[in-house]
């Protein structure tokens, strides 16, 4: 706790520094202080995870009404760990990245506040403290989205969507928490102790409310609409934090309230969570395959991965409820591991997207290409992280998805119907999203970094400065380490899962370097696999050396008989995804316009042809727009009430008086 306090202090000082220092010093000083703060927070989280202790801090002098109450337990610690991983990178990245609006006083201050709140949210342990930091987190990220509004109108609209969704979510969470804390003190421990006395209906209602709010933050479909708008609009370090850390806070909330405060409740809660997860995973994966904006693709992929996390959390809930604590534990561990892994690779990817944007001036994959030659480090980071997200073995994505698959597979041992349905749904969506994710990230890397540059911006790209490289490479670390020796972290994740589920004695995984299921048959030793693969690779290259000493000769690519090969002939991101878009046209509902201009002389010859293909979020178009229009119409109707006539105004009061008199009479 002390360490975390120190970390928070560092971040607060960083915010102060950002607010009061001059422009040049501001960025460097506040970023490095922020990075230090994140490192300290990470250390405190690690200590907590290693020792498994819980420490608390309370003062009544802050936060009128309830006092500031913080509790650092392993569950919170693992989320703090994820945040600190991304936080360090984002802060270091900022040193060179921040220029223009991002380097402004307000933006840097808000950025530091954002980091601070992200670190504190998982530790807040009464309703007021939690909502306070939660809302502060929302506010700072909301304003950060607006940082770079000079470029286009997107960020303004994104901020509005984000703001409204997050506030409605917060309202829902607040009501849920208040219902749960009814009749007890507002500290989480009191709520937890008191929860059994609440009627089941109240508990369920509270959970549903909380779930609505948190799943919106976690980007669960259909409450995700803000996410693909907000992530691209924010500056890259912010989007890295939003995607890697803030979105995970939604999951944290669901676990904390559902498991910690309300003790698991009933099966259908978790069936609902899994359903949200399944829908999100599929919808997110599908949209990420068709997105051509690099950050939008990453945003949808965030929805996808959070969906998988929710499946893990939900499966844990279902299994825990039906008497399979051991496997529930496994599923929870998988979900938590995936959270940390996601923080790593998605943070790295967002930072790389920022690097690409900085170097080329665009995020549109259709205008990128060939960056592997000019930006090798960035390409390396993207390659590793993309492989990790695709669950290529011996990377972190694989370790966590393997755990999740094991959890689901052994979940079939449970013969209750909801459990079976949940496991089946989970497996199916994992299977469906696996392939789609691969398409999305092959596209992102293959179109963006391989081939020839598709625009002058991409052709003239230069690699980013060293601090940004360091930041991105730092985030490759979790992907590699968690992938190669996941067993080393089993103990930590296990403690977090124990504190999440309230069961301390279960250890579903053996200690070691690999993942070995205890009591169940199943194991994977990524380090050994990796050595095998590397061994073969070394053998092959050695054989290559033996076979031929000369370097490969460069020749023109085969152009199907044409002499000239131009960059425009390459497949674009849009065309790459076109087959899948066609296959899933019923879900995606793409908008396609073809506009043909004929030459004046003859209708049979075309002068130009415009092909416009957009994939809009169909849920936004068909689900949200009508509601928004309804509200606007209600607003216009209401305006007729105040038409300026004093007769009418007087009549309002008169009628009110008469109604009261009649009621009283």
């Amino acid at each position: 706790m002390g360490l975390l306090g120190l970390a928070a202090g560092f971040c607060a000082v960083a915010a102060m520094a950002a607010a009061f220092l001059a422009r040049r010093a501001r960025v460097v000083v506040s970023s490095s202080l922020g990075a230090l703060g994140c490192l300290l927070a990470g250390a405190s989280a690690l200590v907590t995870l290693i020792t498994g202790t819980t420490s608390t801090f309370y003062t009544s002098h802050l936060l009128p009404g309830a006092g500031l109450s913080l509790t650092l337990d392993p569950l919170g610690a693992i989320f703090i760990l994820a945040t600190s991983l991304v936080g360090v990178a984002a802060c270091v990245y900022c040193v060179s990245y921040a220029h223009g609006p991002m380097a402004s006083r307000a933006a840097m201050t808000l950025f530091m506040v954002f980091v601070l709140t992200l670190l504190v949210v998982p530790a807040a342990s009464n309703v007021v403290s939690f909502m306070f930091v939660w809302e502060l987190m929302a506010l700072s990220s909301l304003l950060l989205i607006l940082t770079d509004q000079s470029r286009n109108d997107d960020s303004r609209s994104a901020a509005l969507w984000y703001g409204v969704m997050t506030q409605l979510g917060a309202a829902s969470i607040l009501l849920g928490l208040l219902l749960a804390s009814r009749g007890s003190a507002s500290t989480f421990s009191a709520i937890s102790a008191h929860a059994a006395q609440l009627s089941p209906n109240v508990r369920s209602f509270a959970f549903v409310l909380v779930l609505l709010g948190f799943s919106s933050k976690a980007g669960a479909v259909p409450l995700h609409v803000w996410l693909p708008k907000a992530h691209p609009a924010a500056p890259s370090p912010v989007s890295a934090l939003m995607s890697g850390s803030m979105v995970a806070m939604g999951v944290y909330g669901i676990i904390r309230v559902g498991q910690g405060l309300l003790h698991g409740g009933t099966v259908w809660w978790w069936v609902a969570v899994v359903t949200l997860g399944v829908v999100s995973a599929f919808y997110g994966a599908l949209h990420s395959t068709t997105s051509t904006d690099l950050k939008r693709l990453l945003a949808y992929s965030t929805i996808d991965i959070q969906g998988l996390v929710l499946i893990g959390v939900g499966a844990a809930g279902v299994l825990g409820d039906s008497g399979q604590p051991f496997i529930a534990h496994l599923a929870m561990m998988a979900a938590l591991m995936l959270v940390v892994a996601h923080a790593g690779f998605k943070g790295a990817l967002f930072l790389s997207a920022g690097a690409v944007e900085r170097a080329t001036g665009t995020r549109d994959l259709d205008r990128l290409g060939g960056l592997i030659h000019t930006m090798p480090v960035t390409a390396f980071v993207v390659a590793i992280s993309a492989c990790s997200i695709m669950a290529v073995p011996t990377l972190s994505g694989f370790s966590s998805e393997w755990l999740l698959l094991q959890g689901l597979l052994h979940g079939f041992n449970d013969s209750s119907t909801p459990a079976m349905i949940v496991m089946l749904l989970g497996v199916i969506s994992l299977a469906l999203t696996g392939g789609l994710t691969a398409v999305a990230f092959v596209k992102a890397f293959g179109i963006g970094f391989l081939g020839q540059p598709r625009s002058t911006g991409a052709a003239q790209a230069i690699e980013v400065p060293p601090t940004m490289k360091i930041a991105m490479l730092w985030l490759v670390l979790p992907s590699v380490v968690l992938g190669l020796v996941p067993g080393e972290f089993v103990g930590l994740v296990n403690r977090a899962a124990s504190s999440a589920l309230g069961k301390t004695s279960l250890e579903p995984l053996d200690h070691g370097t690999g993942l070995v299921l205890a009591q169940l048959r199943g194991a994977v030793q990524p380090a050994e696999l990796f050595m095998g693969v590397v061994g073969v690779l070394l053998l092959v290259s050695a054989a290559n050396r033996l076979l031929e000493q000369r370097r490969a000769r460069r020749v023109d690519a085969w152009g199907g008989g044409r002499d000239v090969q131009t960059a425009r002939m390459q497949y674009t991101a849009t065309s790459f995804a076109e087959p899948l878009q066609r296959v899933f046209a019923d879900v995606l509902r793409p908008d396609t316009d073809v506009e043909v201009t004929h030459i004046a002389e003859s209708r049979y010859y075309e002068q130009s042809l415009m092909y416009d293909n957009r994939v809009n979020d169909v849920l936004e178009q068909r689900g949200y727009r009508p509601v928004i229009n309804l509200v606007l119409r209600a607003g216009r109707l209401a305006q007729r009430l105040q038409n300026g006539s004093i007769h009418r105004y007087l009549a309002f009061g008169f009628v009110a008086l008469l109604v009261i008199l009649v009621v009283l009479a």
Partner: protein
Amino acid sequence: MNTTYVAVLELAAGAVLVSAVMTLWRRNVRSIISMLSLQGIALATAAIVLGWHEHDVALFVTGGLVLVVKGLVVPGVLRRVARLDPRSRESRPLVNVPASLVIAALLIVLSYVVTSRITSLAPSDATRLVPIGVATVLVGYFMLVTRRRAVSKIVGLILVDNGIALVTFLLTSGVPLIVELGSSLDVLLVVVVLQFLMVSMVHHSDTEQLTEMKALHD
């Protein structure tokens, strides 16, 4: 003597209500103001009679005050205002006169029903008449709502105030003097300010748009 007191009190209270209803009936703003003056005098009478009966000097003084303010000054001010408005007729009220009278009758019934529970706390000759006061309030409010002319609105406001004053006298023989003074002064001030506003508006915006002010709306 007691019967005389009751008779006079009833007469005065009745006059208050009748004049209120008459304001609804009349269209000419001048005669409406005359009704108002009559009502002020009736109200003062009621106060003085009550004060005399209860041997309450404060009420006696209040009665005198009411006579001056509501019987003379306020109508006088209003007459001046009405002169600003050449077409001083309530020609097209929002609710027409017959309907207004019917509604007034309903309001009177309502006030009887509502006040019955109140007067039962301390039944007396005076409190018996409280419904009349409440009815005056409601009729005044109704006038305020349905009459278009600015002067009529002010008259409506004063009717409400007179009704309340009548209730005050009948129920409690008047609230503490300072409050009573304050409230009378307030009414006077309100009327004066309203008159000032009307004058300003008429001078300011030439077009005489007092009846339909709809510039400010959503």
